[in-house]
């Protein structure tokens, strides 16, 4: 099986997001980056499990600058066979990112292209569906289970208040959510081997911007908390009804 896992880079989850003084950008000074958790914990690990069961290769792919190599190497350390970075140095939107991935994957006969459910930075849940449309592939978003029997895939996806089971023939694309696999921590041997695994750098294709982020803002700070006597829950109910007007 030939498997492709698209991995993105996001600020570490404890990062406090600060804006630059003009509010036009995120202040990235001091921000630590990680591999997007959905990509690392679920998409990559399920791809590795399928390869371990049925043979094949797992390629990790990132669209981004050379700084991202450390994240790509982590994917190799966890067990991917090789890696590709499409060398984009500016921050671009989802459609641009998807176009790059689609042009790279076109004609390469990947059986499954894995994405994460969403990035924890821009929270779009779009890139996977976009790549699928560009390549005319079936796509299942928020997949929590994937079983493969040859080219027959059975995918379970999360829906509001339940789940749906889908049968589809590879090649397919999907986005992985919690439940699909268990996080793997790279070991020393994996980290050493990762240094010698191939990382190909590919030139991006031209594609116009369809969106632009004009500015950012932060949520309003909450005023100070109103403390309620733990003996007097009637008072809390009254406040929720009369003051907050939520019940």
């Amino acid at each position, binding site marked *: 099986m030939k498997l492709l896992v698209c991995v993105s880079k996001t600020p570490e989850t404890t990062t406090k997001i600060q804006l630059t003084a003009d509010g036009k950008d995120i202040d990235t000074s001091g921000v630590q980056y990680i591999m997007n958790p959905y990509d690392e914990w679920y998409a990559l690990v399920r791809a590795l499990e399928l390869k371990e069961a049925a043979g094949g290769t797992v390629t990790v792919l990132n669209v981004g600058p050379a700084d991202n190599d450390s994240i790509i190497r982590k994917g190799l350390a966890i067990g991917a066979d090789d890696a590709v970075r499409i060398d984009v140095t500016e921050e671009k939107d989802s459609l641009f990112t998807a176009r790059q991935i689609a042009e790279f994957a076109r004609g390469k006969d990947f059986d499954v292209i894995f994405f994460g459910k969403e990035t924890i930075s821009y929270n779009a849940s779009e890139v996977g569906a976009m790549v699928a449309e560009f390549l005319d592939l079936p796509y299942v978003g928020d997949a929590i289970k994937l079983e493969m029997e040859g080219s027959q895939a059975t995918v379970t996806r999360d829906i509001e*208040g339940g789940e749906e089971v889908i049968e589809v023939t590879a090649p397919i694309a999907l986005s992985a959510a919690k439940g699909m696999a268990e996080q793997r921590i790279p070991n020393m041997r994996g980290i050493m081997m990762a240094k010698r695994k191939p990382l190909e750098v590919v030139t991006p294709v031209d594609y116009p911007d369809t969106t632009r982020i004009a500015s950012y803002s932060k949520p309003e700070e909450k005023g100070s908390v109103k403390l309620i006597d733990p003996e007097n829950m009637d008072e809390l109910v009254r406040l929720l009804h009369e003051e907050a007007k939520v019940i």
Partner: protein
Amino acid sequence: MVLAYAEATNGEFKKVAHEIINYAKKTADVLGTECHALVLGDTPGAEDLGKYGAGTVHRVTSPHLEGFDAAVYTVAIADAAKQLGATVIILPHNSTGKNITGRLAARLEAGSVAGANAVPMMKDGYFTVTKPVFSGKAFADVQLLTDVKVISLAGNSIRIEELGGDATVEDLTLELPAPKTKVVKHQVATGRVPLPEAELVVSGGRGVKGPEHWDVITDLADALGATTACSRPVADSDWRPHHEHVGQTGVAIRPNLYIAAGISGAIQHLAGVNNSKTIVVINKDPEAPFFKAADYGVVGDLFEVLPRLTEAVKKFKG
């Protein structure tokens, strides 16, 4: 024209469809144009969608729309938009929308914003849409630069209003491809409102100490008619199902009321819940970080406070 994709939920038009049409109508008003709705399949009640702001409802029926296949739905929406001359297409940012929005944007090579939480505005000459980023730690104002634009709306972002009367329903004939996927099982729990749509949520953390104690959470949820949620370690320990896990790596929610009991308020937890309108925190530790993000706080033992609150809610509801 602004085209709202009105999704039927289990065979009926409910909150999701009403929110999308309301939002599309408000978007149309900003642009000085009309709002139409698109219905895929033969769901009863299409004419009532006028109430939420759709002047005309276009209905497409086809056997290929029976099981949900995102590629087929995408062709239907894209072709309808082209035929009808829609310049903005609005979808829900839910499990259906997340399968379609990206495909649609790619198919139409349209700029898109997924998960918008406010009505678009014209700002500095650009059509601009605000969406939460970094799991709600910030908001981005995104300019859409293409002639055709795609927006998906996060649930609970606008309050539903009546904005019109009856709509005319017109059948639209489209050539649709056969689906490549087959839905073999579709299972939804009845009873509680699904978490992403819920207006009232009661959530428990490690402080509840084990699944055998969860009655204190579910009793309050039942009394309120709320949906239950939990922190990540609770789901990781299988005390509660994974789909209840809220936060940066779980479900992001924006209910009117979020009651958190025995949850410390880690930054990753807050990221998924801090867009809630009102937050109540119950914790025995007065120093718990969650109190800084709360509107109302109760310092006390949740095993005493929650049953008391449940009784107070029952009394209030009569």
